[in-house]
């Protein structure tokens, strides 16, 4: 299947200081990659580099066949990023935020990928109905995460990116979002990167996983390894902890 994301020898950082280096990563349609790592390992910096928020010091990022550095606007049409809750435009209501993103992406505000799933409108299923016309400033962390996820899914971009956004969701919303991500990626038209600290959630949701440590990819798991780990309770967590301990010792 066609590559949705190709990252080659990526180095990036802040004010000339390199935080992530030598990153190589490729995602095909259907992939759900779990991005793991300790605090400060470089997960968010990698996502910022992939989404064009910081300048690449080296390497390249190609999204759905379009080079991010050469054509940033066109490349950015290829992904939907769930914005971090504190970065959302606090004065706008949830509906206005959705309309803002829809107007940029050139789609209808209700163009959310929930038609092929039972249960109707995604925003209603995320229990956003009573909040949607209130300013985002009044939202809790979880409600902000829900609206950010809803906006990321607008127009169904090929690559979906969630930077620890799923961590703040309530159980029902988390289940709904995981169901949508799984269905979208299973359709063969989308791929997803899910950055998370909830290690035990990765085998159930993702079909690949990578571990970041000290600004580089230190270990990866393919679909078979993840499926194997999912059979025994705690096996994947043990595997991740072992990798982290080995890295710390090295």
């Amino acid at each position, binding site marked *: 299947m066609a590559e949705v994301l190709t990252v080659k020898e990526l180095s990036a950082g*802040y*004010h*000339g200081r390199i935080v992530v280096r030598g990153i190589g990563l490729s995602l095909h349609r259907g992939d759900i990659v779990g991005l793991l790592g300790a605090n400060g390992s470089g997960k968010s910096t990698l996502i*910022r580099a992939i*989404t*064009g*928020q*910081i*300048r690449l010091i080296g390497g390249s990022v190609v999204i759905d066949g379009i080079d991010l550095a050469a054509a*940033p*606007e*066109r490349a*950015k*049409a290829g*992904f939907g*990023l769930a*914005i*971090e809750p504190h*970065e*959302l*435009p*606090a*004065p*706008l*209501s949830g509906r*206005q*935020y959705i*309309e*803002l*993103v*829809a*107007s*940029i*992406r050139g789609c209808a505000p209700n163009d959310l990928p929930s038609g092929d799933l039972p249960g109707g409108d995604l925003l209603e299923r995320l229990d956003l109905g009573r909040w949607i*016309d*209130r*300013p985002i*400033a*009044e939202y809790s962390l979880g409600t902000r995460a829900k609206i950010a996820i809803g906006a990321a899914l607008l127009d169904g971009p090929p690559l979906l990116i969630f930077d620890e956004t799923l961590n703040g969701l309530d159980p029902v919303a988390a289940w709904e979002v995981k169901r949508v991500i799984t269905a979208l990626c299973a359709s063969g038209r989308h791929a997803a990167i899910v950055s998370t600290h909830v290690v035990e959630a990765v085998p159930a949701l993702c079909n690949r996983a990578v571990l970041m440590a000290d600004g580089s990819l230190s270990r990866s798991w393919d679909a078979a390894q993840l499926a194997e780990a999912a059979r025994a309770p705690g096996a994947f967590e043990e595997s991740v902890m072992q990798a982290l301990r080995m890295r710390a010792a090295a």
Partner: protein
Amino acid sequence: MLWRELVAGLCATRRRDLAWIALGGGGLLAYAIADIVVALHAAGPKLRHDQLLWMLGLPVAFAALGWLAGNAMSRLCLSRAFAPFLKALPLASAERRRMAAVGAFALGLPLTLMIATAVGFACAVIGKPLAPAWGLGAATLFALSFGTAGLWRLRRPRLLVDVAASEAAPVGRPWLRRLDRARPSWLSSWAWKLPAGNIRPSWKLAAASLLLGLATILGAWASLAGHTAGPAAVAGLAGGILVFMLSLRCQPLGSPVLRTAPIGFTRVWLRLVRLPLQLSLAFFLLPAGAALAAEPSAWSVPVASGLWLLVLNGAYAVFGAFFLNTPFVAMLSFAGALAYAGYETLEYGRTVLIGLAALVFFLWHRTRQRYRNG
């Protein structure tokens, strides 16, 4: 906290940039001081005997400066004393205000010393008798005004009130529904921080509208009474740029919501400028119409005034985007750049304007780069 923020900011800045700031800024400052000393020396005899300047102009200027500085510094200190991460600590409101007062005092003291030194030095340069006394007097006036403004703000915990007000934000049909729907929708509501697109009436808004309205009426009246286009055209130009400066807000340019979206810098920038420009031109139309009615043969005066308004609005839009989180600094910088360019034009002619245009282009380029690369 402010000191630590400053140190952290300096540490986070690249050495190359620091060197540019220190050498370039230091060089410019030295040049500016030398230029001012030469100008003061030349104008010394006239300045020494200008009674209006010494009895009214300078005292009012230093009182106003002290009020503005006291207001800004105490606001800054209050924002740190009531910072969200401090809210969970067992600190009473009075204690926080005391901390803010200490901070404002610590910031005000060096400012007062600078005023005393600068005025004393300037008086010595022009040969004014009792130069140290004038410096001391100016510093006292500045300090009194600074302290009054600081006390006024510190006694009113506006920050807490604002939080309560935002929680009770009304919800209904957004006021800017029709005007703010162009792509990207709701951008002006976001920039103006209108809760869910609703305008909250405030005394600041009312006072600004009243002052601008009065200035327009006065300008129009002066033109119509004197049958000359000049006063109304000037009122239109000055009011138009003021409306634009007060209404332009560009902080969405720094948000990842737009920076990670498939939309370019220029499009977002133009969209942010759109409503303030419409407001500015709408304000301009009334005095321009009065100018035309007062002296129909001088139609070129309001037309030129309108063109200058467009040029100045465009230039300020670049400053506003560059200083996206600090509109007050953007206004001061723009006013400073205009004043400096105007001053140097007297000496070197209109070629200085090319320098101003280059500065605007450079700021636009840097802002665009920052939008693209952080």
